[in-house]
């Protein structure tokens, strides 16, 4: 695999040594990486930046800290959810899936009727009493 996203020659660190190529899938599509790559580095080398979407808003997210502190790169690996792409070494035939929007069963469906402040709550209570 060759592409210009790999820093093959480095003036101080030297030339990248030959590494074993590895095949994995991300959201059903097949990609190649190298042995020693993390999921995050292998995907970025393939031009993939988005690793998940925010569970509620659906907005795209990628790596932020790249060393396991921020948990922004959570993906699903071989059916295990919440795996940090930046800390997980890519393995041959690994199945990686991006984080998706989750259902929000606790989200309110009564935005218009629920009180937003204590004053509104008191007012609503009084109105209800009045009705009874």
């Amino acid at each position, binding site marked *: 695999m060759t592409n210009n996203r790999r820093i093959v020659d480095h003036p101080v660190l030297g030339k990248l040594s030959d590494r074993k190529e590895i095949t994995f899938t991300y959201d059903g599509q097949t990609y190649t990486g190298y042995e020693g790559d993390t999921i995050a580095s292998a995907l970025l080398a393939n031009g993939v930046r988005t690793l998940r979407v925010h569970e509620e808003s659906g907005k795209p*997210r990628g790596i932020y800290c*790249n060393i396991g502190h921020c948990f922004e790169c959570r993906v699903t690996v071989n059916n295990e959810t919440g795996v940090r792409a930046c800390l*997980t070494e890519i393995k041959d035939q690994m199945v990686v899936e991006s984080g998706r929007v989750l259902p929000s069963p606790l989200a309110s469906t009564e935005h218009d009727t629920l009180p937003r402040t204590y004053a509104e709550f008191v007012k609503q209570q009084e109105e209800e009493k009045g009705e009874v």
Partner: protein
Amino acid sequence: MYDVIIVGAGPAGLSAAITCREWDLHVLVIDEFVKPGGRLLGQLHEEPNGEWWNGIEETKQLMDKAESLNTDIRCGISAHHLEKVKDHHFIVHTNKGNFEAKNLLIATGAAETAAPVPGWTLPGVMSIGAAQVMTNVHRVRVGEKGIVIGVNVLSAAIARELQLAGVNLHSMMLPAMNSVTKEHAHPKKVMDGLSRIAHLAPSAFLRFGSRFTKSDFVRKLATQFYPKSGVKMWGMPIHLRKAVTEINGKDRVESVTVFDITADGKLIKGTERRIEVDFVCIAGGLYPLAELAAVIGLPFQYLEELGGHVPVHNKKMETPIDGVYVAGNITGIESAKVARAQGTVAGLSIAKKHVDGKADLDYRLLKAIEQVKTIRNEATIQFHPHISEGREKIEQAFRRIVHS
């Protein structure tokens, strides 16, 4: 049961492990990254004497030594809790099960302080340390053209590393001032930090002379007269009078919005423009990564000189909990060389308790403590000008707590 479990395989953890193995202690080192070395791995800079500090090579030397002593080092293990069962009996809770030890060394290092800018959750925005690891460790280009938000010791050093690897950086500039970015967004305060690395920049800065005229040149950089085109360091403009207000893009970074700013960091109306980039590095500096010290109940002190909240400890790297030790950046933000020397101190402190009748351990420990000081004084990168005072304050805190 292990004699000691070391959490973190960076320069501190590895050198401590080596020392403990030299005294034949039963040691386990765990680290959650895919390879040992910690933040040392990504480091790459030219020392004033012209030699390269190559983190990968330094790590290899530590690992060779550790391996020659049959040290048990396991990567991909995340510790999420430390528990004290009784005196000299601790449990380390990890994603790979629990491990028990008589002593613990917490050498978790540092994390990067966030300096949020609107749009910073877009894919393509990352911390400067993330770009460092991607570039030097994984050898993957983080993008075609980028910008660094935040000018400090760490970001200048890493920007240079990105350039070395052929990654195209437009410039470095400040984040727009908001309630979170205050310190990083004030040109005068940022200037203080920049003056501490002037001697590291070969091309531009050296033309103005050696270390002796450094302060003279820095005076020329006085924020009021800061040139509109920025000051070039290694050919890349560093702007102290420009700030990024927003990172733009639909599904990934496409551009940043930039304003000129006053010497106090206020936006100047009518100077707004966009710069096209496909990646952004945010640099807010480092703070000690100390959650594990907190869960086991170590007392903390906030010391700006040391980079934030640090667990109370003494020069021997002991903490107020008997059997719990700390070393490296968790004790204060300093160079990897200091961390490595602190690891040796911690290793000797632990060995001293377990090896009877070896009188010269006391002497070695004293020597190792002296060595930390020597390395600190010779450091090329000073993360904080008053680091030694911070060290003295934490020592006093230890004495207060232990003697009360």
